């Protein structure tokens, strides 16, 4: 069916949402146009393209794009399409293209910023409107690109707020991840995991701040971790990060959940990776930050203990373990999640290794935790294809959210505020004129 703005608005109620937003391919198509065509979307990190000619391919709401370092050292984001026959100019992946892009089909070439450089055999164009200076004959740039502390975002629309305004308060999570480096910089290193989710992209976002599922969905892994700890007589960090999911409801109720404009938010940390008094790795980290920033600021940086942050449309940075789960919708029932691991430049190597361990054990396809998430997401997708009901509940603590600047804070850590907030943003984008 085709949807009017009124139809779309009617799919989102204050306390529930119609299941078709997860299952209807037409709605998915509209989302790619109206959300992914209008929001600022994370493309990649500066450190993935350090030198001129370095490129990295990725996608923005299904649009294949190239992030490339220009000869002027600036980062450009181009649609991966030759304007001649439409061929993809570079294969998926990364590399260095040299001083220019060269289409493998008819050798049209383009500067690193996409501008037309040359096409073979000038004689054939006489008397036509072929004009190398006209944008129709260059690789097209994504309308806007902005970088914040090395995190490159692109926006396919020329209209609307700038990146800082779009991110709002959630930008502090990017700051905190960078500030954890004594030189204030991070880099993507050590490979990126890629995992299929058999479900709609929104399910993943909702789950990031869904504290009610942890104890239920992850029972097999936290019970296994506890049994292991009992046998070994101690609980190393490897087990501790799984044990956390088994905290009782009372624990989750006390956590803070923040929700901001445009669907963003973050939740308070659920495990302290090590107090600076007791854990030598954290202590060494603290010392490097103290030398760089002074004691007070160093304490403030490490004291900001956030679990998942949500940058709606882009994914989820985890500041304490230096991860970024990039969430890419592929189809109405298929989502690609890429996990980037960051190194804090100048921080002790043990901090990187701790992040590496977290990536391997929590964010990899071979994790002992994520398979149960993947399973329940898939079950939501399948259950919603039945005639067993049309609406999805987001009632928990509805009506109790407290306004703060730029958003809301939940009165209870088990609130479904994050889901309600994401759908407010969804409705805004989807019904924008």
């Amino acid at each position: 069916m085709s949807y009017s703005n009124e139809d779309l608005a009617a799919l989102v109620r204050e306390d529930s949402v119609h299941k078709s937003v997860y299952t209807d391919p037409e709605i998915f198509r509209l989302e790619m146009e109206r959300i992914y065509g209008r929001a600022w979307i994370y493309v990649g990190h500066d450190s993935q393209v350090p030198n001129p000619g370095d490129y990295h391919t990725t996608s923005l709401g299904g649009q294949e794009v190239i992030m490339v370092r220009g000869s002027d050292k600036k980062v450009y984001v181009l649609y991966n399409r030759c304007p001649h026959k439409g061929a993809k100019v570079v294969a998926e992946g990364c590399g260095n293209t040299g001083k220019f892009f060269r289409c493998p089909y008819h050798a049209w070439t383009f500067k690193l910023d996409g501008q037309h450089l040359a096409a073979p055999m000038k004689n054939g164009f006489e008397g036509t409107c072929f004009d190398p200076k006209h944008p129709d004959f260059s690789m097209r740039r994504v309308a806007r690109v902005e970088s914040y502390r090395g995190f490159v975002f692109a926006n396919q629309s020329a209209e609307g707020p700038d990146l800082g305004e779009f991110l709002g308060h959630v930008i502090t999570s990017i700051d905190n991840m960078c500030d954890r480096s004594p030189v204030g910089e991070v880099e993507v290193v050590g490979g990126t995991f890629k995992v299929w989710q058999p479900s709609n992209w929104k399910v993943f976002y909702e789950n990031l701040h869904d504290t009610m599922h942890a104890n239920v969905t992850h029972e097999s892994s936290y019970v296994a971790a506890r049994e292991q700890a009992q046998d070994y007589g101690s609980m190393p960090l490897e087990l501790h990060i799984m044990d956390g999911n088994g905290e009782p409801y009372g624990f989750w109720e006390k956590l803070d959940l923040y929700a901001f404009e445009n669907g963003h938010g973050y939740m308070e940390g659920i495990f302290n990776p090590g107090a600076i008094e007791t854990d030598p790795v954290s202590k060494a980290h603290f010392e490097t930050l103290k030398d760089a920033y002074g004691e007070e600021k160093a304490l403030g940086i490490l004291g900001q203990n956030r679990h998942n942050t949500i940058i709606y449309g882009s994914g989820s940075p985890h500041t304490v373990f230096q991860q970024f789960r990039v969430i890419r919708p592929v189809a109405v029932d298929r989502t690609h999640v890429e996990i980037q691991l960051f190194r804090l430049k100048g921080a002790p190597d043990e901090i990187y290794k701790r992040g590496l361990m977290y990536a391997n054990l929590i964010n990899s396809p071979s994790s002992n935790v994520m398979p149960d998430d993947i399973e329940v997401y898939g079950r939501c997708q399948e259950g919603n294809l039945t005639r067993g009901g049309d609406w999805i509940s987001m009632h928990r603590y509805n009506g109790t959210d407290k306004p703060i600047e730029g958003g809301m804070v939940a009165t209870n850590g088990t609130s479904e505020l994050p889901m309600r907030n994401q759908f407010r943003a969804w409705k805004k984008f989807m019904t924008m004129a």
Partner: protein
Amino acid sequence: MLFDIDFDVGVDRVAPVNLNPQASRAVEQYIYHEARLLDERRWPEWLDLWTEDGMYWVPHSFDQTSPYEHISLCWENKLLRELRIRRLENSRNWSQQPVTQSCRVVSNVMIDGTDPDGYLVVRSAFHSMEWRGKEPVHRVGSLIHKLQAQEDGGWKLRMKQVNLVDRDAVHGAIQVYI
């Protein structure tokens, strides 16, 4: 912490070793036995194959030489192997309902020689299919076993490295041992 351990994953510096046909066949049988224990989900017996400090490694990238500077699909010591199996056996492991059925063919077994620490390096190829009632999952790759000779004449697993042909692909959940 797990990643503090100093474990030599190198398999290229090997000295030739001359095993008689009977001993070679015993090594092959050991490799097949290890595969069979996994397919038959005989977890305690499989766990018993390992040395105390043995490591199970599934690299993530083609040019990866170490599990210390790069993510791995698996880098598991005894603690984590037991953990995975405890989770597989937990009755509320939703993603193991139905359980993963698997069958693997292991072939091309070649004994490369012994590494500087005296462990026997054995290479082979495998093809397996996993099944949970929906889509079949094929896994193909090469295996490298580092075996430690035992006083009774048998072997223990010092390292098992699994090099998937599609290791850099987008994967669904990888749950059981490959």
